[in-house]
């Protein structure tokens, strides 16, 4: 997994609540058996005027010029500013894969759906929960200032605004540790193989029916 320590980047404002995973990456693109290549179809139904299909040449498709990510001032954005309950809906990890493939490294919102939130951490991407008032201020600042950038400092657990104001955020210690070091958590869990085997043995005694072949 990619490390995440600190990141500074252009901010794109997605001014909608309840952005669901069907919107982030529509189902027809879930048929891929790869982890990469979802970026061109991120927010497909909002970004393009036609209906997208897997395997298309996306550079030839008509763009929805009104959609935020198609506006020239947000080209190259790597920090997504969003509204409450971002990532609700399905468990598809294709959603963080698509955001990451597009170039996003962090998503800031007042709240996230649980599964999406969890999936982000597995992919070196940082979802950050900030108070709704702070998010509102960030939206106003992004709209007001072209080229608006934020710095996300995971080690210090702060988002730094261009005016120097630091907004603190919470992150689980274990997830922070994994992101800072780019750790593969399967490898970490396998270090506890003995404990897993001991647990299995005791469960097998008590609930043998769980252990069907």
């Amino acid at each position, binding site marked *: 997994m990619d490390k995440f320590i600190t990141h500074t980047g252009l901010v794109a404002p997605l001014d909608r609540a309840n952005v669901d995973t069907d919107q982030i990456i529509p189902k027809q693109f879930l*048929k891929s058996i790869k982890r990469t290549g979802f970026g061109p179809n991120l927010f497909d139904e909002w970004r393009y005027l036609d209906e997208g299909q897997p395997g298309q040449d996306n550079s030839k498709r008509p763009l929805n010029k009104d959609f935020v990510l198609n506006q020239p001032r947000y080209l190259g954005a790597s920090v997504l500013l969003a509204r409450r309950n971002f990532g609700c809906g399905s468990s598809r990890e294709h959603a963080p894969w698509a955001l990451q493939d597009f170039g996003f490294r962090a998503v800031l919102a007042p709240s996230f759906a649980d599964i999406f939130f*969890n*999936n982000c951490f597995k992919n070196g991407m940082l979802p950050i929960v900030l108070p709704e008032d702070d998010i509102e201020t960030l939206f106003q600042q992004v709209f007001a200032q072209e080229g608006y950038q934020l710095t996300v400092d995971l080690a210090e657990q702060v988002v730094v605004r261009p005016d120097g104001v630091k907004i603190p955020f919470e992150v689980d210690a*274990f997830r922070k540790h994994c992101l800072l070091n780019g750790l593969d958590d399967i490898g970490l869990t396998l270090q506890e193989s003995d404990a897993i085997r001991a647990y299995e043995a005791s469960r097998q005694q008590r609930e043998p029916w769980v252990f*069907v072949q």
Partner: protein
Amino acid sequence: MVAKTLYDKLFEAHVVTQRDDGSALIYIDRHIIHEVTSPQAFEGLRLAGRQPWRVGANFATLDHNVPTTPFKSAADIEDDTSRIQVQTLEENTRAFGIREFGIGDVRQGIVHVMAPEQGAVLPGMTVVCGDSHTSTNGALACLAHGIGTSEVEHVLATQCLVAKKMKNMQIRVDGDLGPGVTAKDVVLHIIGVIGTAGGTGYALEFAGSAIRSLSMEGRMTVCNMAIEAGARAGMVAVDDKTIDYCQGRPFSPTGEQWDAAVEYWRTLVSDEGAQFDAVVEINAADIKPQVSWGTSPEMVLPVDATLPDPTQESDAVKRAGMERAYEYMGLTPGMKISDIKVDRVFIGSCTNSRIEDLRAAAEVAKGKKKAASVKQVLVVPGSGLVKKQAEEEGLDKVFVEAGFEWREPGCSMCLAMNPDRLQPGEHCASTSNRNFEGRQGNGGRTHLVSPAMAAAAAVAGHFVDIRDC
């Protein structure tokens, strides 16, 4: 002794190691696999040279991509990407020795219909699947929730997940449900009350006399949509109905093990005086048949309501969401729900494709015809076994005589990964779980309803109050 909730008991019984930061390594008893969210996980195993930790814990089937018209093998699937995904699962299960109920197997079906039906999922288990509707299985007093593909790989490789305990929320529905009010209406009403993020961070326990009165299949419908209330997991405590449901299923214990299991399962209830972080109380008598009108499951109303006025909404973010929903849905504030015309009807999905759902739809359709203005009514059973039973009961004939289409099992038009989908602008009365933009096909407009309400809309050509039928 400290009084514990059902969720506390389930979580604590699966802790392998507790970490200082509050997270724990928890053991996973069952891992259900389908073709969409598993290929990258199997690929990860291969790349790392790992094997599944406990092969027998895994149950695989095909559901999201399969056509619902008859076909014999994966080679018959026309869409290249769908076919490759189906074949990839077949190859992966073969290579790793994982049990799969594949094409042509009567047990094949939607993961969350297949697993309880087989007794693959039993009370007291932890159950995960790369699908957010895994919460369905919580109806059997399991801790069941969806996971992403990285965690699919993690479970395959280690039989564990790193998890932090969620908070406890009890949703009590007490009293008698009125005529025509089903499990689907109960859960849609709950989502209307607490909102799509109301359960975020919580494990939900559905309790109260109205939940007790539901069949096991009804409880599955309720738990299925816990995720639409923001909660990864929903559950119902064990009672006689739970035990009766589990008895005699292919992967259920028998003999002495059955007796021991039942003794343990009886303890899977929240203790008297157990503390919940939040409690929501709902009067069953307040629940009417529900219809969603917007593009989020919380945009839902009783069938006799009129559509809300966004200018009356004081929360600016919510108001903007409502305005966008009106634009997408092609509806106007003040309109009566019964004036919404339907172009297609979908009866199926992991929410409502079990035998009782099909019986409820058939009861409404019996002796009637679909309205001429309705282009298509799809009835898609949840599994091969549901299909077989429905045919033994003659339900298929009722549907066909009413002009409905009787199909093969799968996820179908719930998410339109196979050929079943809406055309832009079409309104659909759907027994599925999500009314997101484009969910049932690009530009499609979904209205979530119960099976009986869907069948009634198919006959009338617009939404009707099932209580008047």
